[in-house]
């Protein structure tokens, strides 16, 4: 770990947040696919922010909750 809080190298960084990176990459691929099909979607920063929060925060939280309910 460096003084600024970032990992010492790329490999360490990837190892620390592999699941998170996969989520962001999936969100990116989905965003590009929607954007290419409906370019209007790409004009708004607010839409992009909402999309990202839904993809990397809301959906995983819902999936986690559903998973824990099933287990219970």
């Amino acid at each position, binding site marked *: 770990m460096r003084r600024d809080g970032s990992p010492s190298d790329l490999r360490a960084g990837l190892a620390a947040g592999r699941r998170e990176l996969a989520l962001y990459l999936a*969100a990116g691929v989905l965003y590009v696919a929607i954007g290419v099909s409906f370019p209007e979607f790409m004009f708004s920063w607010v839409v992009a922010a909402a999309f990202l929060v839904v993809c990397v925060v809301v959906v995983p939280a819902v999936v986690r909750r559903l998973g824990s309910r099933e287990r219970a």
Partner: protein
Amino acid sequence: MSWAAHDLEPYVIQKELGKRVAFVPLLIGSYAPDLASKWFVYGVTLVGVELKADNPAQFHRGWPGFGFTHSLTFGVVIGLMLYAIWRNEVVAYSFVIGQWAHALTDVGDTVGTMLLFPFTDHLFAAGAWAYAGQTGRYTDAGAYFSGLGFAWDGVFVVWALLSWRVITRGYFRTTVMAADPFWSWAGRYLSETTLVALYRVSYFYGIARWTAWLIWAHVVKSFAFDLRWGGPRWVPRVYARELNAAPSCRCPGCCSMKPRLGFYGAVAVCAWAKGHSGSVRELLRAAPRRNRARRRRRALKKQ
């Protein structure tokens, strides 16, 4: 105008300046020049009424118009206002840095920006890619991603990817949160995962949008690439000389753009920098000694 550079510049600057900048004002500064004017450049339809500037380029970059938002002075004025409100100099100058980055990046197109407004309404333009905002946002997108503009944005995409450390959670916790009061305030209402996602939005937006527009322009549509200076030539372009009163401007800013004055100015700046730099001064002092030593060695060889 740039399509992805303004999203990614703040991350690149954040990487260089670390705790010395506050990210949110930096980002807002980077978007500020277009915040109030871009919608009117492309036009919007509200309740069946189309709202659009008669002369989009003049409105966006010129004077009279909203071109003053792309001047360096605008950043300083808003920065001073932010300082008056929050009494936090980091917030104030972070905004100024972001706004200046935007104003300087937009110099790249054929219209350029009034950098030195209100001292002059001269538009400083490198003319590397076509300004085509007046053609509507889809043609503008197609033109931008077919000329050197997309390459310029590509530089920022690569630079941002190389600055990957700034989007890590550890960096956010240790550096970004420590320097920017916004995040500790937002942290009272949102989880850290949401805060990190919000911090990464513009990074995500810039890179994903750059990729998507490229695919849209050249796979879905078939806009022709034209990487010549000032291109693409197939789109109707607007030039700086068509706006404001640029040709008759005699202010020092415009005059210094003339090659000879510019050259003299550059020499004067170099001379001043050399005179003020301790290391350079030492180097200059050491140089004659080195020459003396060289001369002595040559003389010894001759003997």
